[in-house]
């Protein structure tokens, strides 16, 4: 492995871990649920993305078997699922806020009219 590629991999790893940490700092530090949502959906996703990219480059250079692309699958998957997760969580939070159940029991099933499920 040449020094240049080693440098790129190292930089990606440290940057990725830094963004993972920043996402969690946002999760722990921000005062309101909807603000907390921002950290994990963006910073963490990109952090893990950078780490996976580093892994892909590392094993492509390391292995004699050739390019290692399979890290791209979780990368792709994370970028698709992160917005969906955020969207559903935000919806759940709004639902709980509007029904005044912000720290109690989940909505009882009997609230829905029968036949809706």
């Amino acid at each position, binding site marked *: 492995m040449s020094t240049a590629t080693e440098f790129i991999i190292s930089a990606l790893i440290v940057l990725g871990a830094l*963004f993972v940490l*920043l996402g969690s*700092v*946002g999760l722990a*530090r*921000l*005062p*309101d649920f*909807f*603000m907390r*949502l*921002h*950290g994990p*959906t*963006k*910073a963490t*996703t*990109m952090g893990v993305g950078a780490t996976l990219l580093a892994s892909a480059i590392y094993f492509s250079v390391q292995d004699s*078997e050739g*390019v*290692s*692309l*399979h890290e*791209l*699958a979780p990368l*792709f998957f994370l*970028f*698709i699922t*992160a*917005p*969906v997760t*955020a*969207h559903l969580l*935000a*919806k759940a939070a*709004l639902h709980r806020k509007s029904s005044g159940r912000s720290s109690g029991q989940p909505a009882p099933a009997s609230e829905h009219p029968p036949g809706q499920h």
Partner: protein
Amino acid sequence: MMRALLPMPRVSLMVFVLWAVITNAASLGLLVLGALLAIVIPLLSRDFWPDPPPLLHPWRGLRFLGLFALDIVTANWRVARQIVGPLHRLSPAFVEVPLDLRDPFIATLLGSVVSLTPGTVSIHVDQQRWVLLVHALDAPDPQALIGEIKERYERALKEIFAC
């Protein structure tokens, strides 16, 4: 014949590429198995897929993906600074973005794009009023934010897909 075997060519292509990527496509046998899966999975899951509008400009789509990747990086930089910086300076807000597009699939796509880029998370797509409810981490000027989303993403998506 083609249509019966491959009702959704784009989904088939995606399944095949994903399979090749996951297995690192080391042998011919794996590729054949991937092709088989790319035919069988869309046939079995056909009823669950929404009908996406036709892709008009695939090349523009690729350019959009590039722009989007750059935006993800800059957006992360911005959000990172906001997270570490003083919190009292942030002005979080719920913003309603009126949509021009009228396709549920593209609206969902726009929601995902918005969630991954500049300090915004999409919360709800109202398909009666065609409004996208967005939460912004720091939006001192909601009008500017609405303009940015419409100008930068919605128009591009409308151009790429025919809708």
